[in-house]
């Protein structure tokens, strides 16, 4: 099963992304109000979904489990680290695609609006996490500090989510549902939006898996180097 997932995840992700592009650019109709610009709805919200909820959510759960003594493991620290790195990429792409959408609709590339600013702050917090990990060589200190940092940084996720409701913002409110769960998007547009969410979620899983494998192989190499050095010292009679 694991081997099958390994083999299929990449190709399935690429197909899903290709279907998203095909549906988004050629099959769906232009919007009544926004025209062709509405096609960005099949890219930007899915990127934001991965950045905010999947990446940050994965890192938060892994960090909380790491801090819990019963479940503490190197694997969880590695998952949190890799998910945070992936989140930096998705947050950056969310901000870039949002900015590209904002210029023709709002007339500006950027506004110090609550949604945009809180998302940018989230990106800075994620970058700060990567910097913090480089501050010490002690693996246990690094993992513990990192886990606490992620839990504190994750407080910003609901702030980003509710920012459009709590403050008056240039950014629109929810795209898919109204506050009373009324669907705002229908037909092929709704299906394409759903496909885009699946495609970018698969991309997240694929990238996280690849990044995790890289980190795990680095850990194995570091362990082998230490073991080799210890062997040499033992032969010299030092240890």
């Amino acid at each position, binding site marked *: 099963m694991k081997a099958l997932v390994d083999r299929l995840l990449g190709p399935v992700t690429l197909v899903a992304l290709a279907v998203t592009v095909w549906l988004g650019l050629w099959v769906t109709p232009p919007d009544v109000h926004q025209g062709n*610009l509405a096609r*960005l709805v099949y*890219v930007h919200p899915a990127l934001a979904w991965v950045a905010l909820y999947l990446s940050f959510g994965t890192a938060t759960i892994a960090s909380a489990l790491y801090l819990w003594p019963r479940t503490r493991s190197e694997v969880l620290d590695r998952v949190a680290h890799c998910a945070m790195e992936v989140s930096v*990429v998705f947050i950056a*792409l969310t901000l870039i*695609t949002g900015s590209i959408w904002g*210029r023709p609709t709002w007339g500006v590339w950027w506004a110090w609006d609550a949604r945009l600013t809180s998302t940018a702050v989230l990106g800075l917090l994620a970058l700060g996490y990567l910097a913090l990990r480089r501050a010490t060589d002690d693996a246990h200190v690094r993992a513990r500090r990192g886990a606490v940092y992620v839990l504190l940084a994750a407080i910003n996720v609901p702030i980003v989510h509710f920012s459009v409701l709590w403050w008056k913002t240039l950014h629109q409110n929810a795209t898919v549902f109204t506050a009373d769960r009324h669907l705002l998007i229908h037909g092929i547009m709704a299906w394409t939006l759903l496909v885009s969410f699946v495609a970018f979620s698969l991309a997240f899983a694929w990238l996280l898996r*690849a*990044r995790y494998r*890289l980190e795990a192989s680095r850990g194995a190499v570091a362990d082998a180097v230490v073991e080799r050095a210890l062997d040499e010292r033992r032969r010299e009679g030092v240890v």
Partner: protein
Amino acid sequence: MGYVDAGYAFALGGLALYALSIWWRGRRDPR
């Protein structure tokens, strides 16, 4: 290139570049 094409290009190009960076770091690391 319009805004829509630019949005798709950045989204997919960005992910492709990140995937490439993971692959490149894996190749560069000592084994």
